[in-house]
């Protein structure tokens, strides 16, 4: 939806694209959909608004500091503010971001209905990130971080994380 498109000044996209999620280093925070807006105000200060993935995500403070550091290095003064509304959803992860997750060994989120089915252990829909089989089973609804669940492939035996759908 148009209202949910982040508003980012084109002069800043390259710099912001270098900042990654500290817990998933292959994923830039731009691809994660965490930056909701980044503008340069009249005083020349970059004003960035970010939204947390999960309320208690310990990575948010680090992301804020990393954004300021990257912008400072590019010669900008910057300020980062946290906004809660509208709440982040996994739909904001870009196609490029989903691909990066899968390449890193984290299965990208399914849609809401499928997500519910796999997390109740009712259906096998999550694709193994190693061999591509959907013959996978839920090990734990909560994984190494708040945003992930733990799965295992029944064909190649690979254990892997699944990024839970948040909507």
């Amino acid at each position, binding site marked *: 939806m148009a209202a949910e498109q982040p508003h980012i000044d084109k002069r800043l996209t390259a710099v912001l694209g270098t900042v990654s999620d500290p817990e998933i280093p292959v994923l830039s925070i731009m691809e994660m959909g965490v930056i909701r807006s980044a503008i340069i105000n009249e005083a020349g200060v970059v004003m960035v608004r970010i939204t947390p993935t999960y309320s208690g995500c*310990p990575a948010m403070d680090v992301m804020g500091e990393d954004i300021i550091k990257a912008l400072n290095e590019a010669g900008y003064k910057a300020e980062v503010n946290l906004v*809660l509304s509208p*709440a982040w959803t996994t739909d904001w992860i870009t196609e490029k971001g989903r691909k990066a997750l899968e390449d890193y060994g984290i299965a990208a989120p399914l849609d809401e209905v499928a997500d519910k089915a796999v997390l109740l252990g009712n259906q096998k829909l999550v694709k193994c990130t190693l061999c591509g089989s959907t013959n996978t089973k839920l090990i*734990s*609804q909560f994984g190494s971080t*708040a945003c992930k669940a733990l799965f295992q492939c029944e064909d190649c035996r690979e254990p892997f994380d699944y990024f839970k759908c*948040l909507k």
Partner: protein
Amino acid sequence: MNNNLYNYILGIADNSLILGQRLGELCGHGPSLETDIACTNISLDLFGQVRSYFQYAAQIANDGRSEDTIAMLRTERQYVNVLLVEQPNVDFAYTITRQFLFDVYHYKFLVQLQKSNDATLAAIAKKSIKEVSYHLRFSSDWIKRLGDGTEDSHNRIQNAVNDLWAYTDELFHQTPADKTMIAEGIGVDTLKFKDNYFKEATEVLIEATLVVPDLEYFQKGGKEGVHTEHLGYLLAEMQYMQRTYPNMKW
């Protein structure tokens, strides 16, 4: 400052704070790696939500109080969480039952809080409900697994239900601050979903082959700051660092 709004926010946040602390006690002590991680992830979600509430409360107080001082430097009688959430982790069955009885309430509460006239509370609710839907799924799932599991797991979870059921009614008590906030369209009228709460909780317990206690008398007091003996110990551990090294920062 708006005292009613401030107290109302504390009423919501203290439940999550104290339950989050209880779950945090299981870090490294859960019955299995997966359940250990689950309990601490739920704890983390709750603490995250608490931060949003207390940041807002500090803003309303506007007198130098911060999210940290509100969380860490009150005395026992100033915490207004319900008694249910301060009950100890006797065993995994208690942990799960306490979680389940709270999650059913918490989810229904946040559904309503999303419609609050207060934009900040509505935003926190919209953010939190996504996380709480996972908590509810996790605890309901375990209630059924343990209830309909082995003889031992069934007996343990039945014991926990028998003990903790007496704390459910307090979830629906309304303080004067609650009533004022409800009248102003900011607070949630919990009585509107009370029947639904007991219906849904009962359905899951029956599916788990458990017997729902038939009680005449329920425990209360937490919302007025009168707690069970367990809260003092919990606070002593939670506040230790801030009390010993005032103003310390990470």
